């Protein structure tokens, strides 16, 4: 297990540098002058421009900027905003808990609905319930999140007035966005649960379990479900990781100042250091979550450990 862990970590290092370098290059390609952006239409005073350039290394060659920045990142300093001069770490301290709350709620919903739904679909394979659920999950997959968000806002929020339609710091205001966020991934997960369960259903070891004289319910719970849950749990973990980085559309619609919200605003404001900072954070979060997922997988499926 330890050897596996080390190998995975080593594989992640080049990914980290390739991705961050790509981000760095693309962000510098965004037209417009980040310093000018801070002054709107006004002319930037020469001395201020020089100060900005010195502070953010804008005058250095790109590769040097990258290495200077990576040096900071490795000491967990993501830099500061060009616009407000606030440390980006502070911004994370505020935004991350909001995104995390939203993500946690959405994933909990997803797991609670998708797993039983997937099981029910597999058990009624090709019968009415299964067919209907398949179509419903497909429709859920086809609806863009923003449409879902707008509809939920108008109907549940405004017309019925059950839940707040925008962020007011209360836990309740996370409910509607979490539901919206969970819909698509619940559809995906339920279908995955169904497929893996049907695949596991064909395995020889289930025949063994029946030949051992185990009851259908034990065969299902202990021998089929456990194996079928492995990929599903993995997907849940990956989704959680992805959502930690903020849900751009949902946070936008429901005005939740989480990470997705911040990066959209930074892009509008040409606040390049925030864009870079958040992107680098997202990459790190993704890589760490992937590592955790790999370990989780190896823990759940003993065959992986000795790969």
């Amino acid at each position, binding site marked *: 297990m330890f*050897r*596996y862990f*080390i*190998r995975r970590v*080593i594989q992640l290092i080049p990914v980290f540098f390739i991705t961050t370098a790509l981000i760095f290059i693309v962000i510098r390609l965004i037209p417009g002058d980040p310093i000018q952006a801070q002054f709107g239409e006004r002319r930037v005073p020469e001395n201020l421009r020089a100060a900005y350039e010195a502070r953010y290394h804008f005058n250095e060659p790109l590769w040097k900027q990258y290495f200077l920045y990576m040096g900071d990142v490795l000491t967990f300093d993501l830099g500061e905003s060009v616009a407000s001069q606030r440390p980006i770490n502070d911004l994370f301290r505020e935004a991350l808990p909001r995104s995390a709350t939203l993500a946690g709620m959405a994933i909990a919903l997803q797991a609670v609905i998708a797993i039983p739904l997937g099981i029910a679909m597999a058990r009624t394979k090709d019968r009415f319930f299964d067919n209907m659920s398949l179509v419903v999950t497909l429709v859920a997959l086809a609806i863009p999140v923003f449409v879902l968000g707008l509809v939920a806002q108008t109907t549940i929020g405004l017309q019925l007035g059950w839940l707040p339609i925008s962020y007011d710091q209360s836990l309740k205001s996370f409910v509607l966005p979490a539901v919206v966020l969970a819909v698509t991934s619940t559809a995906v997960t339920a279908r995955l649960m169904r497929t893996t369960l049907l695949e596991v259903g064909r395995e020889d070891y289930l025949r063994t379990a029946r030949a051992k004289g185990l009851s259908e319910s034990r065969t299902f719970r202990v021998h089929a479900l456990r194996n079928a849950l492995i990929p599903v749990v993995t997907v849940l973990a990956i989704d959680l990781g992805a959502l930690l980085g903020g849900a751009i559309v949902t946070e936008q619609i429901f005005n939740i100042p989480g990470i997705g919200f911040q990066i959209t605003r930074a892009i509008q404001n040409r606040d390049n250091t925030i864009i870079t900072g958040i992107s680098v954070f997202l990459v790190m979060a993704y890589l760490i979550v992937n590592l955790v997922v790999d370990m989780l997988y190896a823990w759940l499926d003993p065959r992986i450990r*000795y*790969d």
Partner: protein
Amino acid sequence: MTSTESALPPPSGAPYAPSSDALLSVRGLVKEFPQRGGLPGRPLPPVQAVSGIDFDVPAGKTHGLVGESGCGKSTVARTVLRLEKPTAGAAMFEGADLFGMDRTALRDARRNIQIVFQDPFASLNPRMTVQTIIEEPLVIHGVSSGDEREARVADLLRRVGLSPEHANRYPHQFSGGQRQRVGIARALALEPRLIIADEPVSALDVSIQAQVVNLLRDIQDESGVGYLFIAHDLAIVRNISDLVSVMYLGKIVETGTRDEIFDHASHPYTKALLSAVPEPNPVTERVRQRIVLEGDVPSPADPPSGCRFRTRCWKAQEQCIHEVPALIDRGAGHPVACHFPE
């Protein structure tokens, strides 16, 4: 250990006179596979799939290579065909060094060396018709054109006992034995001088096995093709081979003519293998003295020191732990790699 230089002559006591007249002559063949999963600076030891083997396939004859799964016999086939890169050793085909060839030379050599695979379900491209499959070698080597090819394929199909009207069908429409015939037809298309048959019948039902083995023998009688016949089933090997080599854990432990191996086996492993093959005769089976080996084949990533068979051998002594037995004739009349042959 065996020499790893690419040049002949063979190590002392090689089974039969080397080889310039042999169709295929392999000397000191080594193939190791690196193992994934090591830590930096501490890589895992490589898997020693084939650890220095010598053998010849004379023109028009069959050399049978037998051993249990994981003994490296299929790796031999793949390496000789250059589907894998050999770690060390030499393979001379009609006097030309297969391992030293560049792409063009290899392409030409491949006209004369063909392979028949084990799995009749995996060895034919499911998206191609039988016509396309069998004519592919002709197309690749630019041998014949259009109409000629069609006639040639029809001819090949007849030769392997199928009907020419099968040509426009797809592999999944055939039974296992028929597919294997298609595979043989493809191998015959370029009229090769050597066919490497890698477990060609082990995936087939008994009644079909016999058909395919007989077909291979008929083809040899007609065309004088040489076979390297790889199998785990000693009885099949006896049926088709002129020469036999027994492999265990990457090494040849005993080699000789068919009659020498089957009538005068002297390596304990060969004896155990022979003893383990059941005969469909209850009367003799019940009274037969049977050697049942204990345990499993050790991992080729970490083979035992000295004689690799010693961990399962009932004759093993101190000497077997420390000294690798050379494959030489110790009085058995044929080469055996054992310190205490019978």
